[in-house]
């Protein structure tokens, strides 16, 4: 049992101390058994406080450290490192969350918040008394990365990884690389065509010896974990299943364009209502005249935010790329074909950053912009064989304006892939918007909670090409850093079997989501055995064991029970 624990209670500059009386918390815990030192601090994570902590650990020879601050998601690693730097094994550090779980959640009740904070810190102390020094598991990391999805994000990531002397496998579901961009014409801002951009990347990739491309292929199986994922790949028309081993997996599975519902702004009911995707192809393929179903197109109405920024339904988000993409395509049409009149029915144009210049050019060339609110969308209907788009335009004080359109283009946004089996295969979490979710938008923007799996491009959320490539390169760097050294340290937090108490009933292996538990013969009986490199320390197995034969390192029964005692004690 520890006797020299140091406890630091953080103000978080007011995030905590505005609602929790941190000095009162300090006083309440300073005489707890095992506590040698207790302090409050303005920012526990600041460089100067970290230095003070290192000094304290050394000067007082502390054997346990607790910081009561924000979520461990943010700073568990920060303070473990502080401990390490002071020469104290990092598993003697215990984190107490009194921000997300206390000050932010109970900003209406300062007295109650302070009480709760005291309990949470006492529970952390109770746990720390039993904490033990542990060594990280060191595992081999294969210097190879699987890139899933061969669109612009996947191709660019693969190329960079190849540059970094890393073996790369690209797994693409379609029979060709390049994704959606391969079919696009001139792109904003460079005016290079999508086809040329993709070809440029493809030519580079094709000459690389360390890049293997599987087309018409899907990942159908995944075993193993960071450092050594064992993937099964099925290639269409081939009977054999290919197996590869990689240290990291980079997800670049892209998006689906939103498909309008039947009748949404006349889609699939009126014969001249099409989507942005279809319109892009029309402009690309057309010559001299823009013709749709045998008729020359003159007036084009663009209806923005179809399937994006919905007030009800799933797609409450903005799809980010569509304003610029539409204006760009509308200008292409105007320049390529004679007598084109563009009418943009927007919800407020979002040509952010330098894209604003494109909007200014479009205005200068005479494109007409109208705007409506979310509750008064434009109306598309037929009158005397003509298609009319009508809107109450807020730019002209709500005047009702009608445009007779030869073609109505629905500006369809990005939605998550409908067929996203591969995400399920890797157990990747999704956000509110159903796109894959990163751990933290600013601190760890391309990492996922599944160690060794990175995400980039539009499978993570809507992005334009430049943003997609930036995220692909970031993910490549991250995946590379997992495998570059050949070895990896992993958490020693794994389940342990008490061979005496275990009498193989299979309950634990059924509960295990990572297939880390199997059966072995041990003398006269069968018992469970844990594969440490696969076990994630999730704890699913411990409560289902009828004989209490499984304990989790750092979350042992005695630690958890002592925490519960501290929490329950008044």
């Amino acid at each position, binding site marked *: 049992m520890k006797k020299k624990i140091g406890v630091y209670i953080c103000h978080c500059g007011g995030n905590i101390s505005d609602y929790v009386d941190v000095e009162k918390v300090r006083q309440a815990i300073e005489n707890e058994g095992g506590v040698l030192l207790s302090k409050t601090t303005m*920012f526990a994570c600041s*460089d100067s406080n970290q230095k003070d902590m290192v000094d304290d650990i050394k000067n007082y020879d502390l054997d346990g450290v607790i910081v009561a601050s924000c979520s461990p998601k943010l700073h568990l690693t920060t303070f473990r490192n502080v401990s390490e730097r002071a020469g104290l094994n990092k598993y003697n550090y215990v984190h107490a969350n009194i921000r997300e779980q206390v000050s932010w959640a109970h900003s209406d009740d300062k007295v109650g918040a302070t009480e709760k904070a005291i309990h949470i810190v006492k529970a952390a102390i109770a746990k720390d008394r039993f904490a033990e020094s542990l060594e990280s598991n060191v595992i081999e990391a294969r210097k190879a990365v699987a890139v899933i999805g061969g669109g612009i994000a996947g191709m660019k990531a693969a190329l960079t990884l190849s540059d970094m002397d890393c073996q790369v496998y690209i797994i693409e579901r379609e029979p060709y690389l390049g994704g959606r961009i391969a079919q696009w014409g001139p792109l904003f*801002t460079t005016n290079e065509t999508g086809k040329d951009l993709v070809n440029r990347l493809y030519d580079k990739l094709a000459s690389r010896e360390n890049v293997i491309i599987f087309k018409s292929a899907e990942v159908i199986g995944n075993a193993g974990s960071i450092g050594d994922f064992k993937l099964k790949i099925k290639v269409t028309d081939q009977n054999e299943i290919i197996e590869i081993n990689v240290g990291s997996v980079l997800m670049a599975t892209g998006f689906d364009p939103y498909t309008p519902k039947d009748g949404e702004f006349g889609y699939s009911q009126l014969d001249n209502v099409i989507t942005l995707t279809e319109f892009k192809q029309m402009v690309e393929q057309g010559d001299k005249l823009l013709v749709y179903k045998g008729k020359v197109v003159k007036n084009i109405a663009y209806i923005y935010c179809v399937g994006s920024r919905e007030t009800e339904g799933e797609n409450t988000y*903005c799809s980010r790329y569509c304003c610029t993409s539409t204006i760009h395509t509308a200008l292409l049409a105007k320049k390529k074909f004679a007598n084109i009149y563009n009418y943009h029915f927007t919800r407020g144009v979002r040509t952010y950053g330098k894209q604003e210049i494109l909007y200014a050019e479009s205005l200068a060339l005479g494109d007409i912009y109208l705007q409506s609110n979310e509750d008064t969308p434009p109306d598309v209907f037929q009158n005397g064989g003509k298609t009319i788009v009508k809107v109450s335009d807020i730019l002209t004080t709500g005047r009702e304006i009608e445009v007779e359109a030869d073609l109505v283009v629905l500006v369809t946004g990005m939605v998550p892939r409908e067929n996203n089996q591969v995400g399920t295969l890797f157990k990747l979490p999704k956000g509110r918007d159903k796109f894959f979710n990163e751990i933290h938008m600013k601190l760890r923007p391309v990492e996922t909670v599944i160690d060794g799996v990175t995400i980039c491009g539009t499978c993570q959320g809507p992005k334009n090409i430049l943003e997609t490539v930036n995220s692909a390169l970031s993910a490549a760097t991250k995946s590379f850093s997992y495998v570059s050294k050949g070895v990896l340290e992993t958490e020693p937090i794994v389940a342990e079997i008490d061979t005496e108490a275990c009498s193989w009933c299979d309950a634990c292996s059924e509960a295990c989501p990572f297939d880390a538990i199997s059966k072995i013969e041990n003398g006269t009986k069968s018992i469970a055995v844990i594969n440490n490199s696969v076990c994630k320390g999730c704890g699913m197995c411990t409560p289902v064991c009828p004989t209490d034969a499984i304990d989790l390192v750092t979350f042992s029964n005695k630690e958890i029970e002592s925490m519960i005692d501290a929490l329950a004690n008044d």
Partner: protein
Amino acid sequence: MMSGQQINSSFDALVVGGGIAGGETALNLANNGFKVLLIEKELSIGGKMILLSKVFPTLDCAACITTPKVSEISRHPDITIFTSSEVRNITKTGENNFEAVVVKKPRYVAVEDCTGCQLCEKACPVSVRDQYQFDLVGRKAAFIPFSIASPKAAAIDIENCVLCGACEKVCPTNCIDFTQETEEYLVKINTVVLATGFKLFDPLMIPRFGFGLYKNVITSMQMERELAPTRPFNTVLRPGDGKVPDKIAYVLCTGSRDASVGNPVCSQICCMYSIKQAQLLMGTLPMADVTIYYINIRSFGKGFEEFYQQAKGMGVNFVKGKIGKIAEKENGNLILRYEDINEGIVKEAEHDMVILSVGVLPNQDATGLFKAEELKLDPYKFIYQSDALESPSKTSIDGVFVAGTASGPMDIPDSILSAGAASSEAISYLIRNK
């Protein structure tokens, strides 16, 4: 003057700018085993982000995200940091070799000996405006830049110092040293990442908004300081008379989307930071009315539109219309004359505090760095991305990359991804040219 001293010729990369993009780049490179020299012109690394309050759309406190990164950067064995330093010029000497002249300005404090005790601050008789609080309050000529600065050490503002020696007398570690001189170093590197960041638009350029004339018209960066955990007043108040405001207005697109002030582009961050500040203000001052005057609300990123809708739900008042002119009443309140787009008429509204949501301008610090090669700029004077769609961090010079807002306006998540891209290109470049 120690001229042309060669400190270490074995840096793999030179990163110019120690803000969030430069810091992230330095960390990515160092974590993959490369040696980095990081040059920052200010007294602390952390850039603008370290001075912010909370960040959208997650409302994490900016310091909580920045300080641990700053801490990691400052103690990484493979990162050498020079603060209050500038790169004078960079010359390409070979296929993948550059030489750079780095000038380190004297701080007049031996950083390694300073304990940050602030006794010098107390002893110093000179008060000047505090640039790290954006002039809201004063500081001394002997001062610690700000409480979470890295390094957290005093500095002497020699331009305002009266050389009275009071600080030297009280310093318990004798770390103040007026004999320090400008030092010049010649360093050899293999690749360069430019992360020189951006400048904020100076609203004095728009006299009709009355900034500098009316005390209760402030910039968004000043409000950012008023809302930060290390805030100067410990509450939000208007500078004119110290009154807690209860009718606050935001003027979006101040110096953005405005060719008349030479900046036709959208600054990409102002809508969101203003919406964030409005939400924070409603938390700090529950009785206050907050109105945002806008042209378009551009909440385009992940979780941004939802954040905008949340602000509407909290009662932030959004008015579509541009501000023509701001006038001051005798009591310090302000009259905003604006075009109400919804009603199609010109109206006036009274507010007791106005925040100008100032935009992003190019920081041209990197412009003159290269003598022999041409570092191209885009039409708006940001660093030109020579292959914007395939390699966004490539510049017009092979082996020189750009990270963050040096290439154009972007928010923090995009800056970090851009830094990731620049690191990736720099690592590939270093490995390819090994």
